[in-house]
């Protein structure tokens, strides 16, 4: 049980997690992150490069999730099963925590439903890039779609014209592989490891923050971002559940659509369409930091 002794204290492990990320990401950044795809490179490898930052983020979080599920009484086989068929960090963390308070089955499933309802939005917003795909493809794609690989795929679809459904599905499967293997290892090492969840979980928060920054193209998107922040806080507190995420996203994005439509028809030269990146962009960044 040398592992147990070595990881008894929290600090060395956190330092380990951080140095792991440093090594992994620097390697990825120096050698792997090429914006332009080398035509001689096989598709599976170039797609793996795209999904590598996500895959690496999944390892510590997946380990933590496996440990929690083990603590909640899940055996390793069931942990593997839940990580493949539900494949959602948030949902699995919620299952683990609700099991430890002995919540009834029905209330866990209901909470899961509210939590997973937001996937309807992911599917809807990706659908225009997946027009004309076969029924089988849609089924497989929906099966392994979650927040994080959606984030990677949406960004690629929006910025890379050569990005197609096949590569998007590959990203999903890479992230699924890293996630479920980490879950199983976490379940096996069980209580031997102690991970500070709040620190590890921040990897996903940072991933989403990065995605927000990449989404903000003009002042209107910035406005919608700030609006969504207030709406999300409001509805999360009102509904006392993640249903608040769905409601606030629907309202904020709809207001964005209405405002864009209004400006386009009434005053196409409005300042709201001014780019955030470019001249005078530094001021916008400061504004955003203040509001977030």
């Amino acid at each position: 049980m040398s592992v147990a002794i070595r990881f008894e204290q929290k600090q060395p492990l956190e330092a380990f997690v951080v140095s792991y990320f440093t090594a992994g990401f620097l390697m990825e950044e120096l050698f792997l992150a090429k914006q332009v795809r080398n035509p001689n490179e096989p598709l599976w490898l170039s797609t793996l490069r795209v999904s590598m930052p996500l895959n690496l983020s999944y390892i510590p979080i997946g380990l933590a999730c496996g440990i929690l599920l083990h603590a909640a009484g899940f055996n390793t086989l069931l942990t593997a099963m839940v990580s493949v068929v539900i494949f959602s960090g948030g949902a699995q963390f919620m299952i683990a925590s609700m099991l430890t308070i002995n919540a009834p089955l029905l209330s866990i499933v209901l909470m899961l439903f509210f939590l997973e309802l937001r996937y309807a939005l992911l599917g809807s917003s990706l659908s225009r890039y997946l027009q004309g795909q076969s029924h089988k493809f849609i089924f497989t794609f929906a099966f392994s779609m979650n927040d994080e690989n959606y984030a990677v795929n949406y960004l690629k679809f929006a910025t890379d014209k050569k990005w197609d459904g096949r590569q998007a599905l590959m990203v999903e499967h890479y992230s699924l592989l890293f996630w479920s293997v980490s879950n199983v290892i976490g379940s096996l090492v069980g209580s031997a490891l102690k991970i500070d969840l709040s620190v590890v979980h921040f990897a996903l928060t940072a991933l989403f923050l990065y995605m927000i920054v990449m989404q903000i193209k003009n002042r209107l998107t910035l406005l919608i971002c700030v609006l969504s922040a207030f709406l999300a806080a409001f509805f999360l507190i009102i509904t006392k559940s993640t249903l608040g995420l769905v409601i606030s996203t629907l309202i904020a994005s709809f207001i964005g659509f209405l405002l864009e439509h209004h400006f386009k028809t009434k005053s196409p030269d409005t300042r709201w369409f001014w780019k955030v990146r470019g001249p005078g962009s530094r001021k916008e960044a400061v504004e955003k930091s203040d509001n977030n």
Partner: protein
Amino acid sequence: MNSVNTWTTTQHFWLIIFGFFVAFLPRYIPLLVFTKRKIPDWFNEWMKYVPVSLFTALVVKDVFIDANYHLAPMTHLPELAASLIVIVIAYRTRSMAISVILGLISVFLLAMVI
């Protein structure tokens, strides 16, 4: 997390099966409906604002809201400060990897200080 759950393996199995349906149907149905027919333009225009709104909502939940759904920014001070750092880094570098790694380092260091 030391409290032992009294459920049997069979009950865990059924939880996963039910969980699968509530997780899969919201992923599947909209994707199926909207890829098989012509999507109206206004719907695409609306969905264009979904990612930024949803990611913002997820970040707000992580940073400002506690486990009991109360507004609690003060309990997440390291995350709050690290978020500002990540925003600046993401804006400057445009790199997902650098943003995540520097974000983790800052939240790790800030958690020790604050």
